[in-house]
């Protein structure tokens, strides 16, 4: 996840993590008292991470923008509901974002475990698409083909940087269930990418070579 500056005196990772957590909790407390400046600070700190998760989850830039907006409006209204020490602020933010995305899927009459309706948004920045390697394009394709809960699990743990326990909290499942989702997602991605020649064959034989 974003957050490390990498400049000046080198801090131990734990120190910077603790400092970030303290900062976020202080901001939320101020937001609960109606502090607009604190809200702006929180938005600017976490909007990119929330937007990125929603974009990769939904496959739609427009949906990601709307959901990210709604996520932070909920934060503005419900900051007083955050319980310090129970979960990290980033976990709480992603929980709100994820549940709004699920509601969005349901409203579109998609089953929770249905596959994404499209590959990554064709409106995506052409320059960014050009810069992406062929491997990344194939990965995007494979990710889009995953059922939504598996996609969410793999994004949270492997891209957004959450632990299994934090990701389970966000998805509202037990850790064991989250690990099952991860296992199915990794297996499906491995099979897809093996067939596309990105990875070596699955263990036990097969075709394909590593790019």
């Amino acid at each position, binding site marked *: 996840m974003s957050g490390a500056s990498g400049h000046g005196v080198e801090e131990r990772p734990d120190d910077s993590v603790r400092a970030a957590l303290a900062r976020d909790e202080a901001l939320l407390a101020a937001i609960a008292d109606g502090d607009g400046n604190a809200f702006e600070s929180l938005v600017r700190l976490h909007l990119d991470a929330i*937007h990125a998760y929603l974009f990769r989850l939904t496959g739609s830039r427009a949906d990601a923008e709307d959901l990210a907006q709604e996520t932070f409006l909920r934060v503005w209204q419900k900051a007083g509901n955050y319980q310090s020490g129970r979960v990290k602020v980033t976990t709480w933010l992603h929980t709100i974002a994820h549940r709004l995305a699920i509601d969005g899927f349901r409203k579109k009459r998609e089953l929770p475990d249905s596959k994404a309706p499209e590959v990554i948004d064709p409106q995506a920045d052409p320059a960014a698409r050009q810069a992406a390697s062929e491997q*990344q394009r194939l*990965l995007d394709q494979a990710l889009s083909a995953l059922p939504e809960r598996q996609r969410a699990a793999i994004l949270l743990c492997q891209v957004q940087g959450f632990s299994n326990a934090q990701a389970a909290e966000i998805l509202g499942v037990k850790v064991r269930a989250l*690990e*099952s989702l991860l296992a199915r997602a990794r297996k499906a991605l491995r099979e897809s990418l093996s067939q596309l020649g990105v*990875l070596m064959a699955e*263990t036990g034989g097969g075709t394909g070579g590593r790019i």
Partner: protein
Amino acid sequence: MAELAGAFETIMDTNMDLSTFNDLLDRHGPALDTWPEALRRDAEVLLSTSSEAADALADAQTLANLLAAMPDAPAPSHLAGRILSKATAADTEDPWQRLLDWLGGRLWRPVLAAGLPLAFGFAVGMVQLPSAEEDAYLAADVGLMAFSPTYAELADEE
């Protein structure tokens, strides 16, 4: 020498087979230092002897690297401003609702704590208890009942 060979075999023996290793790899990912300690040790033993396990780990690491290298998807530059405007507009357009939300979110507990005893006392006060005069009549009635023949008959029957 035979003892050494036996010890070596014991050391290299692992309870983890390839299928189990692959399942754990899918559940926990390729970063073995995040695995439960006992499983990590068994996995390392298997990896030292199994090229298939090593290939599976390499593939898992390749996948993890691809996922970690996904291009950033930053929010568009206008989105933060749009969010802040919406939050401000919500405050401006419906101040009463905002006040109710704030009261509901912040004050319901102390209000409830103060209000319940008050409500209880009010309810008790609404019950019409007999006045002192009424008490006297009631006592007289009871007394008459106690000494009435009917009551006496009943008492004998008990």
